[in-house]
Structure formats: structure tokens, C-alpha cells
């Protein structure tokens, strides 16, 4: 008799987050999947002093950094790929307000793997021999930074390699394509590091673009990479990664990607962005109105939408999801 874990986005943030927490978002892809809606809600609820663990920078980290609520961040990549530098993150780093610790895109999933396995360290054959190993924004006066990627001796050959510190984020908000009310989740597109993150984090909230019946999971159990037993809360939030894309569901909103990144380049721009795109909406409907229904429609008709076809018959309507939410609060 597993219980539905569906709750509202506001409730999820209230229940699972706090100032100063180690916060990881999934997938943390710069133009693709990321729990960006969760980050908007963190801002709405005034969370601050966050230690962000993002495999890559995203528009979420860009926004949170621009708004000044991130004091520490760890990333493998800190740009927006073809959309250029992340102006908000950049401003926070260059002003010294945010300490950004550098890793590579393999280092982050390896550190999450180590956290998931509860290893004391993870063998490192990358990042060694570069300034990623020698310089630490978290220990700026150490040179070389002994504690960041120390050396470990291979007992079989005596050869020295590096050792990564495992990651166990306090809370992970993981964006998924489809989730059932119990938390079983299906990812369409690259997992990036969501599989490892879901096992490494102490608490996991999934943010799903669509909610499906559990029968969908029974038909495709090999697609369910995050089983319900790992999930504390399930949030229904269509276009949760907007303005970034979600394979099968919606394409990148190129105009908003540019508008947003431009705005985050200044304090004033950030204030107006928050005013116009973070605080206004009150629910999923007004969130989609804010994006613009025509835009929503256009972005939903992308070249990957066929990827969603096998699962459409199990997708619950907004009304059905609302009923599940209410029955939950009732219980």
C-alpha cells in the first residue's frame, strides 16, 4: 500500500530545503534537463546561503547566483554552451561573492558515485596534473591545494593517482520527464548524472514534466531509473526546465535563454527578471500563462516529441493530478 508522494512545488520547497543546505539539482545540463522551477521556488521562499552542487551550470544556478543566494558552488562546467557565458554566475564569481570550486564533467559523477557507494574516496585518473587539482576556491591559501584531490597509492603497482572526495548533497531536486505518484521516474534523453545523484543525495525530490499512472512503470520497468523507494516527494510541474529543453516534451526557448542571460548580467536586470518571471505566477496554470500559451504550444511540437508517444496513454490530465494532490492533503 504505497502512498502517493505528490505535493505542490511550494510545499516541497518548504518541507525539504533550508538556508545553508548543500543543494544539488538534476540533471544540471546547461541547455537541457534541470529542475529550474525548483530554483525559482527557492528564490520565492527566500532561501539563501546555498552550497550549490551542479554537474554543470544551468539557468537555475545562473539565476540563484545572480540573486545572491549562493555562497558556494561546485561545477564541472560553468557556461551555457552555445548560449555563451553565464552572466549571473560570472558576476557573482568575479565580485568574490560566490566561491566557485572547479571540477571536470567526469569528476562530478565520479564523486556522486563515491557518495552513493559510501566510499571514503574515489580513484581519480583525471583532473590530476592540472590547476583543478592544485588550486581550490574553498581553500584559497593552500598551494598546491593538498586537500582537494590528494594522491593515493595503488597497492597493486605502487603507482600514485588522485583521490576525489565523495559527494552526498543534503537535498537533490531532480528533473524527470515522467513520474508516477509514488516517485518512480522515467528519464528521456541523457541521464547525465541523475542516476548517480538519486543514490548519493540524502533527500530526493523529483520534479516531473508529466505524471503517469504506475501501470506505465510496470510496462517499462527498465526505463525506471529512479525507483520510488529513493524518493521523498513528487512535484508535477510542466515545463519545469524552461527555458531549457526536455527531450520528448519541449524544445529550448531560445529567445528566453538570451533574454534571461542578458538580464542576469546586471543587478537591475536580475531584479526585473525576478519581478517578471519568478514572483508573478501562483500555480502551474499561471506559470504556463507567463511563458505564453503560444510559446508552450510551439515548443511542444519539436523534433523529439515522438519520444513521448509510447507513454502518452498513461499521462494524467492536470485535473487528475489536482485530484491526487487534494486526496493527498486530505489523507
Amino acid at each position, binding site marked *: 500500500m504505497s502512498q502517493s508522494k505528490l505535493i505542490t512545488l511550494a510545499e516541497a520547497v518548504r518541507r525539504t530545503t533550508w538556508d545553508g543546505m548543500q543543494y544539488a539539482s538534476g540533471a544540471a545540463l546547461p541547455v537541457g534537463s534541470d529542475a529550474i522551477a525548483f530554483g525559482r521556488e527557492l528564490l520565492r521562499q527566500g532561501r539563501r546561503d546555498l552550497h550549490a552542487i551542479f554537474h554543470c551550470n544551468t539557468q537555475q544556478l545562473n539565476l540563484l547566483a545572480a540573486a545572491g543566494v549562493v555562497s558556494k558552488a561546485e561545477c564541472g562546467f560553468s557556461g551555457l*554552451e552555445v548560449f555563451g557565458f553565464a552572466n549571473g554566475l560570472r558576476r557573482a564569481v568575479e565580485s568574490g561573492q560566490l566561491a566557485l570550486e572547479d571540477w571536470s564533467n*567526469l*569528476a562530478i559523477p565520479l564523486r556522486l558515485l563515491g557518495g552513493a557507494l559510501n566510499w571514503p574516496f574515489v580513484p581519480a585518473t583525471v583532473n590530476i596534473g592540472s590547476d583543478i587539482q592544485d588550486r581550490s576556491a574553498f581553500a584559497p591559501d593552500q598551494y598546491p591545494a593538498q586537500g582537494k584531490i590528494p594522491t593515493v597509492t595503488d597497492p597493486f603497482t605502487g603507482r600514485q593517482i588522485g583521490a576525489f572526495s565523495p559527494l552526498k548533497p543534503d537535498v537533490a531536486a531532480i528533473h524527470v520527464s515522467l513520474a508516477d505518484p509514488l516517485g518512480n521516474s522515467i528519464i528521456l534523453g541523457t541521464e547525465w548524472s541523475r542516476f548517480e545523484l538519486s543514490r548519493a543525495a540524502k533527500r530526493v525530490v523529483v520534479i516531473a514534466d508529466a505524471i503517469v499512472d504506475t501501470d506505465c512503470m510496470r510496462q517499462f520497468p527498465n526505463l525506471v531509473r529512479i525507483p520510488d523507494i529513493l524518493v521523498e516527494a513528487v512535484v508535477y510541474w510542466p515545463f519545469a526546465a524552461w527555458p531549457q529543453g526536455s527531450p520528448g516534451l519541449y524544445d529550448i526557448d531560445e529567445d528566453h535563454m538570451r533574454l534571461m542571460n542578458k538580464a542576469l548580467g546586471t543587478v537591475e536586470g536580475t531584479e526585473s527578471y525576478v519581478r517578471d518571471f519568478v514572483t508573478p505566477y501562483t500555480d502551474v496554470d499561471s506559470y504556463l500563462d507567463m511563458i505564453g500559451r503560444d510559446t508552450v504550444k510551439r515548443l511542444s511540437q519539436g523534433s523529439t516529441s515522438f519520444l513521448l508517444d509510447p507513454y502518452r496513454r498513461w499521462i494524467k490530465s492536470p485535473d487528475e493530478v489536482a485530484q491526487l494532490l487534494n486526496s493527498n492533503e486530505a489523507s
Partner: protein
Amino acid sequence: MTESFTRQEMMAIATGREIRDGELAIFGVGLSMLAGYFAKEHHGPNIRAMTEGGVYGSTPVGGLPWGIECNRISSNATSFTSALDALGFLVASGRCDVGIIGAAQVDKFGNVNTTGVWDGDIGDHYRTPKTRLTGAGGANDIACGAGRVVIMVTHEPKRFAERVTYVSSPGYLEGGDARSRYGFVGGGPSAIVTTLGILRPHPDTKEFQLDGWYSFSSVEEIRANTGWDLKVADHAAVIPEPTAAELAALRKVDVTGALRKH
């Protein structure tokens, strides 16, 4: 006299010529992906292309992808896995034959900086950069693990330094056999392909020297745009212009004309 082409197109084609048919190759976004898919289109139908996102078997659709995970490269994939798979199992393992990476700054030993711009040296500590760049991404993993690495960079004095301010992705470090200190399975950078020519490492010192110039560039122009005293290899020569077939293949891949804008 072949038809006209841009310096960016010449760089992409010269980079693509470095990728051989049948190789397992990892491409980044932008120029790197265009150069890679040009190679697949023109002379490497069996090139096994991948991105660090663990996106396999796909070709870009509807224009240059915005990222390695963009829907534009996710609409005809045969497999989606993960970063651990692509960068770990296939690249850091030494399995990947060749990778193409970019650089904000590169030095005479092929070390790459994509992390930041500082006023002067950083010093014996960490220091906030004057201008923060994108960080290493997957390039560090490719630089450590790929069989060989091709560095693609616009040829400007500020980008070609005696020594990079910050080593984001290791080339030959201080040169010679310095890489062996770390036991990297990857062989290091085999070429720096620029908008003006191609540099290759000296077999022993690993110092990059001029290997060839383009029909529109010259040894003088290249040396003037290089921040160290660039040596010229004895065998250095002009690099063949793009053939009509090469240009056609590149432009078929570069549907949006990204490389013809400048």
C-alpha cells in the same frame, strides 16, 4: 581557383582532416561538432561519433545544436546513457581515439585554459579571475584520456601564451615526458588547428611548432599572432585549400552557416 571560403571554414576542414574513418571520436559543441560531422560526411562514414552526454548514433537535425544534450542532437539517437559512460567508460578509460576541444588560451606545450582571465599570474594560491570563463567541462577528461586531442582555436596573440595562466586541461605540461608523472592513458594533443594554420608538437620536447599555413596566411602573420617565439618545422608547408567536395560536405553539415558569418 576554388570557390571562396572563410577562415573559420578552413579551420573546421583542417580539423576534420585530423579525424580518420572508423575512429571513436568525441566532439564538443559548436565548431568542434561541425568539424567532426564534416569529417563523418566527407571522408569518415564509419567514424563513431559521441558527445560527453552519452548520446550515441545521432546526427544533428534542424541546425547547430545548442549543447551536447540539445534536442537537435537527441531526435535520432540510438542510445542515451550518461556522463559516467561517455566521459568515464569511453574517454577516461583510453578507449576513445580522438577528441576535439576548444581553448580560450593555449601555450607552447598545448596546455589549455578555459577557466579564467587574471591580471598577471595567479600566484601561489587561488585567486578570483578578472574574467571568469566556462571552466574545464569534459575537456579535462578528454585531455587526460583520449588517444589524441585536436585543439581548435582562433589564432590571436592573447590566446597563444608562453604558459597558460591556469591549466584547465593538461597538454604536455612543462614539455618532454612531464605527462608521464601522472600516468595519463591519453597521448596528449596531436595538433593545434587555428584560423591561420596548424601547429604540431616536436616529438621529443613536445613544444608546438608551425607545421603548416593556409593559402591566405603566412609564417610571418602566424608568428606575429603567437605569444611565444614560434619555431617553424623544417617540413612546414602550405596546407591544401578546401576541395569543392570538402566545402560541399562542410556546408551540408553547417546548415545555418555558422562558419560563414565571419
